[in-house]
């Protein structure tokens, strides 16, 4: 099995498959309602400086997620 890493560890331009979201209930549901469920393929579009948010592409749309929350999303790099 591939190693699971936090989404924030993926490099810009790289893709991964979401494996689990270990955030609070609210935040997790909110992410799921935006299409971020396990087994979804995501791509890191950009990360901002100084531990700022991460912009990802998921299901054809763009999403910005705060760094702290993004770190709780575990992915497998592909």
């Amino acid at each position, binding site marked *: 099995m591939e190693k699971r890493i936090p989404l924030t560890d993926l490099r810009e331009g790289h893709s991964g498959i979401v494996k689990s979201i270990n955030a609070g209930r609210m935040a997790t*549901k909110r992410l799921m309602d935006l*299409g971020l*469920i396990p087994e979804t393929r995501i791509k890191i579009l950009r990360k901002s400086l100084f531990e700022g948010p991460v912009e990802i592409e998921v299901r054809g749309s763009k999403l*910005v997620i705060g760094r702290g929350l993004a770190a709780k999303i575990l992915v497998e790099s592909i």
Partner: protein
Amino acid sequence: MIEKKKLNIALAGQANVGKSVIFNHLTGLHQHIGNWPGKTIEKAEGTLFYKGYTIDVLDLPGICSLSTYSIEELISREFIVIQRPDVVVNVVDGTVLERNLMFTLQLLELERPTVMALNMVNLLKKKGIEINFQRLEKILQIPVVPVEAIYGKGIAEILEAVMGLVKTEKPSKPLKFGKEVEVRIEELIQSLKDVDVSYPKRWLAIKLLEKDKEVEKLVKEKSQKILEEAKKLQKELEEIHKHDSSFVIAAERCFLASNIAKEVIKITAPKKISFTERLDSLTSHKILGYFVMILILGMMFLTVFKFGNWLSSVLENILIGWQGSWEGIFGSSILSSLIWSAIESLVALIEIALPYIVPFYFILFLLEDCGYLARIAFLVDNLMHKLGVHGKACIPLMLGFGCNVPACLSCRIMETQRERFITGFLVTFIPCSAITVIIMGLVGKFLGIGWALALYLFVFLTIFILGKIASKILPGEPTELIMSVPDYKFPHLKTVILQTWFRLREFLFIATPLVIISGVIIKGFYLAGWLGPIANSLSPITVQWLGLPTITGILLIFGILRKELVLVMLSVLLGTSNFAQVLSPVQMLTLALVSMLYIPCIATISALWKEFGWKRALGIATFKIMFAILIAGFVSKILLIFW
């Protein structure tokens, strides 16, 4: 029987799908923006006339789902179920259909007659996306209307589809989930059969499996047994899927949406890098993005201040002319001066609104409509986190430098009540243009620009510390930024202008009564000769604690009306504008600091009142008075040691 000639339709959809553009096309100027009863959530309603029907259109808040995380979402689903609009129009962004379908599926669960307005079809070709509308209609079993809202295309077709549905009154049909979920939904529907509620049974069952707090409460009142049954079924699902049951349902919807998308969407052209994407990689760039942001915001501030200063001086000259003719005609009796003070307050209000608020709103909505605000939020999220809020808070805080009133009203862009309140509270500490006039005219002029900047720095530090404290003591978790980023697009001017106009109308509507009444009262006090005694009674604070002259009490009372009156009244009461003769440097700094920190002006208080209720508005005002007195007193005592 008389045919029903009145219809209600509701627009529902996720944020950034062009809902307000469609709303504006449907209703034009016949709209009314108010609040939901007892809530500070905006409610936009409008009316249109079509083929002999009077149609009331309601624009539900833009949200991302119908589960209860936010008041907006709760309001939307309650409206659809309880008020039962004749038709729900689901506005969808065709370029991100799959994500939008997640919301559509939830909407269908509410079982009202539904039409899908598939917006942005004009952008599909450019993106190499092809959508099979007929197939989509067949799968969802609702009419799907292609719309190009910014060109006004497809609006009439939406209305036609609505009319068609009104005749048949065909409710929407929720789509089926996977088997092991479906079995449990059926089981709950059976148990719910005799429960008397207005919500559809299937919807209730789904929400119970999703552990929706509101629905659980509702069902608990009717039958404790069903709730226990739901708990048991949740457990079963969790054992099968090894996930929280609410996530299981979300995943089911996701799966459905993704299957539908696969069936109706064809990506034809290989995606080439478009202009908007290149623009995006510049404006969201790690380093260059900040330069672009500073440039754009700098230009925005400069434009607004230049334009504002010019227009407000023009308006002021007109006012002075009017005062002369007023006194020429009506004399300067007590009654005449009281009436004049009412007119003066009203004109002064327009003097803030027209030159500063209108251009601010116009540029802000322009930036929002083309999609740039989302990029700013991305860039400054990190900085804002230090204040206990997230990226989007930068917008109200920036607005505050112009005028605190639009800044307070724009706190609505924050998702939770907690974030809104913290942002609103911090906004009232941002030195607005009137305070800048005081600082520059008093400290900057007589003590040098260095001291003026030091005061600003001090206030920023205060905001930083108060933000930290407020986010610590207020209940609730700080929310992390979750924001969908719209593609850049050309702004739709009509929407921008309409939004600006409705905000201006709203501002005048809430601020006018308080400003006029308080203007007349203070003028009355002044004429009755009560201001002196009031100032004297304040002297333990102003003179003994702060070390300022007695007349400061009068200045500060006038300052509540409009902050710049502190400086104006100072020169009137002292009979000189060379303040160095009458005030020591420490007194100047203390007075400037008090003016910066103490009570928000009356227009801001009314904005706070409107947004957060009177208790919180008065709470902020009281806190600021105490805080200003305390801090300024200490600062003046420390300064006196060294001076």
